[in-house]
């Protein structure tokens, strides 16, 4: 009671906010802690999934490090040949050209580098691509490296490292000793620990066609203030690695290091420009940042797709927050009315609701960030495997918590929560007190007609957006912005229309039985669905639609790839280096080896393939050389634009002709008869495109030329792969086993095995997609449970009446189960229907615009039916549980 002497005065704004938060928001949270907690956890799951994918992507991209940096410092310019290796003679040119009279102090360190991928020999005969651990072998001048160590006051103990297990070893390797060992290698301490390597241990690796025993001579020294060398890095003296990797006289790149005083500012830019211009076009110069950006560009489409998929759970979560807050508005109408009657203004009520949404978002954000970081440790392996298989070698095994990403996820959580809470807050603030009292706690019926109309408008807009072209960016990369917007609007629009599907579900339920009271009651609820019903159905529809849409895409992709490999993989046996476990491994088979193999009398026909990465302006592609006559003879190519000029198949006349993959044609906007310029060590070559073929194994773009010409341009007779057609009657598996015994360092596949491997890798790349979809559906189902629980709570009076009329707890559980079943059925069927549209959008628009692959559409009936069956089933079970719990009314309990 207020003492008479105390004057009544309005609460100040902060006090009012605090009071509202305490008495209005937190009190309700305390009253229904499990519901609040579940909502928070669902939101946090959405955030966690999103963040985990972001962190995993980041880890995979950042694992594309310039390994030299670990040994020296960040270089300023990286020089490489646009195609093929650099000759060592380039070093003389560089030393000459890296003198700048105007900058006498600009002493530039020139560091030549050889880098290659090697793999551990297989321990069993499984021969699974990507199953062998791979290492990056970095060849640098160990003597010159001492200068960097001295400059940074580093421990220069590359040489003389002792066996930790036997520290009294009398003769550690001196630097001179190291230089004379052709197999001396330094490894990271992480690898030494993992493989129990000591100084003097032998590490067998496959390089090209040979197994080499690397002698571990020490741990790679590194500065305490820098990240530890990656586990998969091995360092050798440059000439030793040149010899081992068959690159004598050749370099993979040269890195330039400016003096610290020129690290920044216009002088540095001037130097970069001057060197780049002086060396172009035979040498391409890129800063490490640009090189990293190129790697990021390479995987951008893949990463973007994953990120967008990861937002599915959050999107579904938003529906739930909206519902939960909307339900809370209904539940608390009486309180709102009291507050309004006491003089709390509209905007203050709205602000209280928004605070509640923000708190929910904040809590979800914090838990989501922690969960996201944990999930990322799992996701990073899946992302890393895919990046390894499709793009470049990377050894990302753990994802660090990036504070920028974490903050972004937190802000997203709070922002989305406020966004979802905006409408309920507005509704809460705008209802007059008298009306609030009058309507009690009934859930709003919602305006189904306007929702449907808006939904149809969004769907129409989505259809229009689907016809817009992608955004084109540097290097021929594209971003299907309109396609993604179309998908979003389509899914949201379909969700808004979901209310109508509830009526259809009610009608269907009516057909099933008219004798069951719980069913009839459930149908009556769905005939006039509340907004709660509609949003639950919309969330389910959204999840099912996206899951189904992705299933359609994956099925179409799988069918297309399957058809492609059936068409392409015609030979009986396929041979490549056992070290080629990742897309970026370019180990080769020397001519002495493959020529010996093809001379076997069991071999009927054979072909070789040489693959060389090449660089067009701002874009990485691959050049492939093989016998085009062989390809024609075995009908290996699936044509999109069939060659009209048969000279392309004649080695005597096809030196200036080529074929390009579909991805290349789309990426660079070229077609048959266009002329392209490709770089070679013997100068740029102009090639006329004679045809366009499909290739689902590469998204960067392939240029296919006659093998002998490519070998001539790149002055090599080694090949990347060899395929053999065996004489009739020869058992491929037996022949493979014989070859494998004779050449254990090779990966040899039969046709059946290789096809199975391709499909396995294909499915592996979609593993994370499935996981994301499953999480989305789980969130939606959990949302359905929350919705039904809310609805039942709102109907407490009705349920009490029903119990009084003789309905048992089981009957009420059955009522909830029917309601949940029909609701889930509506969401699932609506989702499945819209998934077909979404699938088409993914196949014909988003995939085509992003990756450039034409896919043959295929409906995965079984997964879709399974989804259509499982979602209502789970919904029914969940609803039954909720109903049984909700029917446990106080009236049932003994006094």
């Amino acid at each position, binding site marked *: 009671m207020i003492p008479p002497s105390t004057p009544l005065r309005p609460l100040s704004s902060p006090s009012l906010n605090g009071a509202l938060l305490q008495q209005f928001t937190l009190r309700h949270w305390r009253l229904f802690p499990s519901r609040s907690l579940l909502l928070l956890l669902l939101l946090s799951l959405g955030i966690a999934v999103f963040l985990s994918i972001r962190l995993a992507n980041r880890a995979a991209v950042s694992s594309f490090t310039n390994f030299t940096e670990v040994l020296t410092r960040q270089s300023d310019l990286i020089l490489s040949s646009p195609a093929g290796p650099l000759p060592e003679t380039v070093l003389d040119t560089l030393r000459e050209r890296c003198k700048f009279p105007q900058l*006498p102090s600009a002493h530039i360190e020139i560091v030549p580098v050889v880098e290659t991928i090697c793999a551990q020999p297989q321990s069993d005969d499984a021969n699974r691509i990507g199953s062998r651990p791979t290492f990056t072998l970095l060849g640098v001048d160990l003597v010159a490296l001492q200068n960097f160590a001295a400059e940074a006051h580093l421990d220069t103990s590359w040489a003389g490292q002792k066996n930790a297990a036997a520290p009294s070893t009398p003769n550690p390797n001196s630097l001179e000793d190291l230089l004379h060992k052709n197999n001396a290698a330094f490894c990271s301490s992480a690898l030494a620990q993992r493989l129990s390597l000591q100084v003097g241990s032998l590490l067998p690796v496959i390089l090209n066609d040979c197994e080499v025993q690397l002698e571990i001579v020490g741990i790679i020294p590194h500065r305490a203030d820098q990240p530890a060398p990656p586990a998969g890095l091995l360092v050798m003296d440059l000439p030793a690695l040149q010899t081992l990797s068959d690159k004598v006289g050749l370099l993979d790149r040269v890195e330039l290091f400016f003096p610290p005083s020129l690290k920044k500012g216009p002088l540095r830019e001037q130097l970069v420009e001057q060197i780049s211009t002086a060396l172009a076009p035979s040498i391409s110069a890129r800063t490490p940042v640009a090189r990293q950006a190129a790697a990021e560009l390479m995987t951008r489409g893949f990463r973007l797709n994953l990120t967008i998929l990861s937002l599915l759970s959050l999107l579904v979560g938003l529906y739930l927050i909206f519902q939960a807050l909307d339900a809370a508005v209904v539940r608390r109408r009486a309180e709102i009315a009291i507050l309004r009657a006491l003089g709390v203004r509209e905007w203050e009520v709205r602000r209280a609701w928004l605070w509640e949404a923000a708190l929910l978002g904040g809590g979800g954000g914090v838990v989501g960030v922690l969960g996201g970081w944990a999930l990322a440790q799992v996701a990073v392996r899946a992302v890393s495997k895919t990046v390894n298989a499709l793009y470049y070698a990377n050894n990302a095994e753990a994802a660090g918590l990036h504070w920028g990403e974490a903050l972004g996820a937190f802000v997203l959580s709070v922002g989305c929560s406020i966004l979802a809470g905006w409408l309920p807050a507005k509704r809460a603030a705008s209802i007059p007190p008298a009306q609030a009292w009058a309507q009690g706690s009934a859930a709003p019926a919602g305006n189904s007609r306007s929702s449907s109309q808006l939904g149809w408008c969004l769907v129409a807009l989505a259809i229009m957006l689907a016809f817009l072209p992608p955004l084109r960016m540097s290097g021929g990369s594209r971003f299907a912005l309109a396609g993604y917007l179309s998908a979003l609007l389509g899914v949201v629009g379909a969700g808004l229309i979901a209310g109508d599907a509830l009526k259809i579900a009610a009608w269907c339920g009516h057909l099933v039985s008219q004798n069951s009271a719980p069913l009839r009651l459930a149908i009556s609820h769905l005939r006039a669905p509340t907004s709660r019903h509609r949003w639950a159905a919309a969330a389910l529809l959204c999840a099912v639609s996206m899951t189904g849409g992705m299933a359609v895409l994956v099925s179409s992709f799988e069918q297309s790839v399957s058809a492609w490999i059936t068409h392409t993989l015609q030979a009986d046996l396929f041979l490549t280096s056992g070290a080629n476990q990742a897309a970026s491994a370019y180990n080769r088979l020397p001519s002495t080896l493959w020529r010996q193999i093809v001379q076997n009398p069991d071999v009927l026909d054979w072909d070789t393939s040489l693959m060389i990465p090449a660089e067009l302006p701002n874009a990485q592609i691959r050049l492939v050389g093989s016998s085009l006559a062989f390809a024609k003879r075995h009908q290996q190519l699936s044509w999109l634009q069939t060659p009209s000029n048969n000279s392309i198949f004649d080695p005597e006349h096809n030196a200036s002709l080529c074929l390009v993959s579909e991805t290349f044609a789309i990426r660079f906007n070229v077609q048959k008869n266009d002329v392209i310029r490709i770089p070679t060590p013997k100068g740029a070559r102009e090639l006329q495109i004679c045809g366009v073929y499909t290739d689902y194994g590469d998204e960067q773009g392939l240029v296919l030329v006659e093998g002998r010409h490519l070998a001539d341009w790149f002055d090599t007779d080694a090949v990347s792969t060899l395929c053999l057609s065996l004489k009739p009657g020869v058992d491929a598996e037996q022949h493979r086993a014989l070859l494998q015994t004779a050449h254990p360092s090779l990966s040899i596949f039969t046709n059946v095995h290789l096809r199975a491997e391709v499909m396995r890798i294909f499915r592996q790349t979609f593993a994370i997609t499935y996981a994301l979809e499953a999480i989305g559906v789980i969130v939606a189902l959990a949302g359905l449970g929350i919705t039904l629980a809310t609805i039942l709570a709102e109907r407490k009076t009705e349920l009490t009446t029903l119990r009084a009329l003789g309905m048992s707890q089981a009957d009420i559980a059955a009522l909830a189960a029917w309601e949940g079943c029909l609701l889930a059925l509506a969401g699932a069927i609506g989702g499945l229907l819209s998934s077909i549209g979404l699938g088409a959008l993914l196949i014909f628009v988003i995939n085509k615009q992003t990756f450039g692959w034409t896919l043959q559409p295929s409906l995965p009936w079984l997964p879709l039916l399974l989804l259509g069956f499982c979602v209502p089933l789970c919904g029914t079970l969940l609803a039954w549980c909720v109903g049984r719990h909700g029917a446990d009314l106080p009236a049932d309990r003994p006094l």
Partner: protein
Amino acid sequence: MKQTHLHALAVCLCLLLSNPGHHFGAPPENPSEQPPGQPLERPQKQPPADSNPALFPELARFTEDGFEVPQPGHHFTFPRDHGSHPAFKLEWWYLTGHLFGPNQERFGFQATIFRKSGKPPSQAVNASKSRFEKDEFFLVHTALLNTLSGEFLHSERLARAGWDASASTDTLSLHMGDFQLVLSDPTLNKITLDAHIRDQATFSLSLEPIKPLVVFGENGISRKGNSPTAASWYLTFPRLKTTGTLTLKNKSIPVTGEVWMDHEISSSQLTTEQVGWDWAGIQLDDGREIMVYRLRLKDGSPDPASALSWVDRNGHAIMQSASTFSWNGTGVWKSPHSGAAYPLPVRLTATDPATGLPVEFILVPLVQDQELEGTFSDVPYWEGACRVLQNGKPVGSAYVELTGYSGSLNRALR
């Protein structure tokens, strides 16, 4: 002799390239007696010597690992002998000098390039030169003292022979990165030097001998100890007139001055009894020079191979043995970097051959802190510009090298 110079860099390079904790450059116990591939030649010049040849055993022809040992009476031919000698294990070109700017600036500088072979050419498996040699290495030390600011800059760089480091066997033509020392005019023996100290300083100098080349030692041989392989050919331009440009912190300063240049060729120089050495190259204002080195034995006494040579105005060298001169510190400078206590300034007493009277010089550092860290070898040493005082009056300039005062060298030697 630039012996001391030799030693400092020899230690650096040998320590770096060989096993940690192993000896550096110690002579083989059983030098090969195989006949040499190179015939003995008539010595170019017989230096007036009062040294005692009986102190030293006869020189071996080859070291145990097959490198040639410098022999007396060698007939030097130029410009070839200014160039590299791959048949010998160790070789260096050592320039120290005093430069002056137009605004009272005074600088001391050091630019040294050192070559070490891992195997003699006769044992090379592959005759073709690789761009990444495994058996020949170069080490460059550069240092610059700015007496106005007291700043002492220095750097070390290491390279293997190949694309970025090479030494011609025909003439003086040494390259290592941006460092180059080239005989630009063989007729006048003009030399150009381009060097840098990281991005802090560069010098581009033209050097022209004011006095003829001196070959130190008896019969062209400079003995460095009682080992049959501890000897070198020691060639010196004691005074090179120098002009050029010094760029310090992006500011170009025209400089002139005088430089001392040593070129020493050997296959083994140190003995295990020697724990350090002191060296000085003194340019007196009267046109004469003094080269002196003191090799210190474990008991603190000078090795009998220590020597002092006067170079008269006409370029003739007069060698004096270890017993005829003394080298003592008049104070101690303790390095804040390595903790080594260097005996500085230096009091040098000897007999002036012009007068036959004893003479005493005090070598006073222009700046105390001229210690090089010896990053690669962990063997710090002091190499610095000094003024030369006689009876308290300046009579010339000098460069002094003090090695083996940090203890590291002793550890290395053991």
